[in-house]
């Protein structure tokens, strides 16, 4: 929980020589939290609720449901193309950092990749909080100039003829990549299809899993 991190300081010191000491940033965050609570600017219960929301309720399984529906329901796919914000909202995923959505579809000829070179813009209602790598200089610098190199870091090698389309999220428009539906999934229901849709495939740094890659 957000307000009691000091109670657990023994179990989150990655790479620290002295587990009993708090790092500089931990001390800084703790001081900030104490001050804001003391001033009455933040309510510890609200802090807990925020963390719990993004740990348990808003995450990439939401986006996977959108993709699975897009694969299964041509009318929904058409709606997604026409008005992604409304189509996604209809599944209950809306709000902060997903107010203005655009869905971009991978095809045999074109692969889409999403980045925010200027900060960390990311479609929270469908994908949750961005992974660390999405916010790093390594990803933000290279995605726009060497996307195939970035894809190789994820173990993805696309045919030389596939066009690469990179979307730099410089405004409040948020992008969701609709990966290609893998072969051999005919007749699968949406829930089973959603299991093929990884977070990274909806950012564009991965492809949807093939049926053979699913755990038995």
């Amino acid at each position, binding site marked *: 929980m957000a*307000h009691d991190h000091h109670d657990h300081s023994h179990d*989150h010191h990655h790479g620290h020589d002295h587990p009993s000491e708090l790092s500089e940033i931990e001390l800084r965050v703790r001081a900030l939290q104490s001050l804001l609570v003391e001033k009455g600017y933040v*309510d510890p219960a*609200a802090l807990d609720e925020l963390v719990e929301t993004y740990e348990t309720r808003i995450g990439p399984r939401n986006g996977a449901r959108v993709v699975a529906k897009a694969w299964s329901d041509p009318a929904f796919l058409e709606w997604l193309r026409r008005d992604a914000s409304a189509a996604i909202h209809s599944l209950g995923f809306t709000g902060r950092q997903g107010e*203005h959505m655009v869905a971009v579809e991978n095809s045999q000829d074109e692969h889409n990749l999403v980045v925010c070179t200027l900060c960390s813009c990311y479609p929270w209602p469908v994908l949750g909080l961005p992974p660390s790598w999405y916010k790093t200089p390594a990803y933000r610098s*290279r995605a*726009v*100039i060497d996307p195939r190199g970035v894809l190789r*870091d994820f173990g993805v090698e696309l045919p030389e003829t596939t066009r690469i389309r990179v979307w730099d999220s410089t405004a*409040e428009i948020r992008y969701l990549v609709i990966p290609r539906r893998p072969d051999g999934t005919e007749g699968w229901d949406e829930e089973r299809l959603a299991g093929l849709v990884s977070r990274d495939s909806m950012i564009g740094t991965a492809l949807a899993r093939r049926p053979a890659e699913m755990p038995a």
Partner: protein
Amino acid sequence: MNGAQDLGGMMGFGPVVPEPEHEIFHAEWEKTALALTLAAGALGRWNIDTSRHARETLPPAEYLSSSYYEIWIKGLEKLLQQTGLASAEELRGGHSQAAPAPVSPLRAKDVAPMLARGTQYDRPATTPARFAVGDIVQTRNDHPTGHTRLPRYARGRQGTVERVHGVFVFPDSAAHGEGEAPQWLYTIRFEGRELWGPRADPTLMVSVEAWEPYLDAA
């Protein structure tokens, strides 16, 4: 501003390291950093553009050597001082030394409605759009010292209007308390070679969102 946040096209940061989907936080303090940033933002004393500008004005060496949640914390400390909600001394000591500003803190029961509501950034159009889908445009070669959302790599380049999104709050103004000054917003698509020269991947196309003041007819 041409700060360290404007990373597109830089080299030398090494490989991207993937991580599993279930790894949301890597330390307890990161959870606190997220929650404090959202809860303090809900006080309504600044907007998204103000907070982006607070982060990007960190000295470049500090920006590049901080993790993203560290950048958020440093940005939040700056915003609290700029808005008079806290002083540098208070932040250093972690204790209040002055009466708090009158604010209504975010309550737990209001978290879900607040997140679901989000913030709409589109505004009614009062002028016709200057450009249409398919138009060729030239982005301005301009280097403002304040906040802007046109990355350096996409300045002074020729591109094609791919989408017309409507009228949106203009960050260059909103970040500095100068009003929303809403402007038409477009997706502009560039050929890789227009951005990166002859070495560019010939299959590459990159787009940015650009507000109308960033654009001229080509």
